[in-house]
């Protein structure tokens, strides 16, 4: 089943660790992501993009407004909405295979055997995270999240720390994993937080530009080019998004 995500008037403030100062991160976010849609959220760094993901994941609670998933208010962490952390957050004491089967094992289900192959991880099952390159680590993080088969996949700069080549490869892997679901099963709803306009334009159905802190939705761009996309042909929309990000 695929589910939509809505944020209505969502505000969030956090207390800064050093100073004890209250910082407004989100100043009323209104956003609807349709079931099976891939939406990218872009904006200047430190603007609260990650906070949006943590709210949808149920790891944070909104101070005001409402976060809903499939029409039901989000009240906490759940396996229906899985977050892929920026650095992967792999369990370093578990092998690649043990990391990926963590979710299925916790739920008492078998692992979808096609997953390892789809993410190019065949042959690396017995390795520990310390033995993997950054790109491989993020493949494992992606596989570990997909193995839970969530309705909503939340991606927090998943390829931000990678070199250009691995980044491009993993974007392809992610797109394929998402498209794969189209035939037969319902496609997953995905929210991708990124600072790369190019990445957003390549992958997303819609690109949401948020302002600097305290963040509001500044502008939304619909990208309806067929997939797989040639981003060089989408220069106009890329420039328009870049301008929106810079102008905040």
């Amino acid at each position, binding site marked *: 089943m695929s589910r939509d995500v809505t944020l209505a008037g969502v505000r969030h403030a956090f207390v800064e660790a050093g100073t004890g100062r209250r910082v407004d991160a989100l100043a009323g976010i209104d956003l609807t992501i349709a079931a099976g849609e891939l939406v990218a959220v872009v904006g200047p760094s430190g603007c609260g993009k990650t906070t949006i993901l943590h709210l949808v*994941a149920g*790891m944070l609670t909104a101070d005001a407004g409402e976060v809903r998933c499939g029409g039901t208010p989000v009240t906490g*962490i*759940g*396996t229906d*909405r*899985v*977050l892929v*952390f920026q*650095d992967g*957050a792999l*369990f*370093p*004491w*578990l092998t690649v295979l043990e990391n990926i089967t*963590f*979710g299925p*094992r*916790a*739920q008492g289900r078998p692992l979808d055997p096609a997953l390892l192959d789809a993410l190019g991880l065949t042959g690396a099952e017995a390795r*520990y*995270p*310390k033995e993997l390159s950054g790109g491989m680590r993020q493949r494992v993080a992606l596989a*570990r*999240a997909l193995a*839970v088969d969530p309705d909503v996949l939340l991606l927090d700069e998943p390829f931000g720390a990678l070199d250009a080549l691995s980044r491009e490869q993993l974007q392809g892997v992610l797109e394929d994993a998402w498209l794969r679901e189209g035939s037969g099963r319902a496609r997953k709803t995905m929210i991708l937080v990124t600072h790369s306009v190019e990445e957003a334009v390549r992958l997303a159905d819609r690109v949401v530009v948020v302002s600097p802190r305290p963040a509001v939705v500044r502008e939304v761009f619909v990208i309806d080019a067929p997939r797989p996309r040639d981003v060089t042909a989408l220069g106009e929309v890329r420039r328009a998004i870049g301008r929106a990000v810079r102008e905040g």
Partner: protein
Amino acid sequence: MSATERLAGAALGGRRLPGALGIAALLAAWALAAARWPPHVLPGPDVVLRTVLDERALLLHNAARTLWRVALGYGAAVGIGLPLAGLLAGSPLADRQVGSLLTLLRAIPPFAWTPILLLWLGIGDGSAAIIVFLGALFPIVRQARAGFAAVPPALLLAARNLGASPRIYWIDVVLPGAAPMVFSGLRLGWALAWMSVVAAELVGADGGLGQMILDARNLARPDLAIAGMVAIGALAAASEGLLTAAERHTLRWRP
């Protein structure tokens, strides 16, 4: 071992050599000193070696008593200390209330308990094991508590997000995440367990290596006293080696 360390080891002529050199130098100094002093004051390594062989039944018997007391006390310290550390890490209320109690108790050296325990329990395995327990408990609790608190929050969030039950959360995530510090507590506790058992046996116990050393002095048998010391050192070093091997195996995932 990293490539750099291997190179450094090779440059020193192998990693085992420096360790063996130290022991050889100690033995040589001991033999030289023993040649100048009468054997009833300082017996040489040869005399002590003969005593070890001649008195092996006595040594083994007492070593078994000592090991049993350490096993009882240390086992209880691990069995109670790790869950207690988990409780302290998981509950701020328990951390405040029990934490201050532990701070107070920790300030009392385990050996200070000996007289009162002997009064209550008499001479025997029980009072020695309790002193071992008291010696080992605090470092185990303290390090494990710090270890539990040092597990990266992202890993804990990820575990819950992937649907971990409380059992999987604690056993498969929190415990391995805390393992490096848990092991540091286990080592510290082990060293204190050995010090505590010998101290307890010296003050008053029925048998054990500490008691045997004390008896040897009363019998004017320095060779037997040194043999007992060697046995204590050998057992402690060997068991520490086992602990190190277990640690290395358990933490093989570490970068």
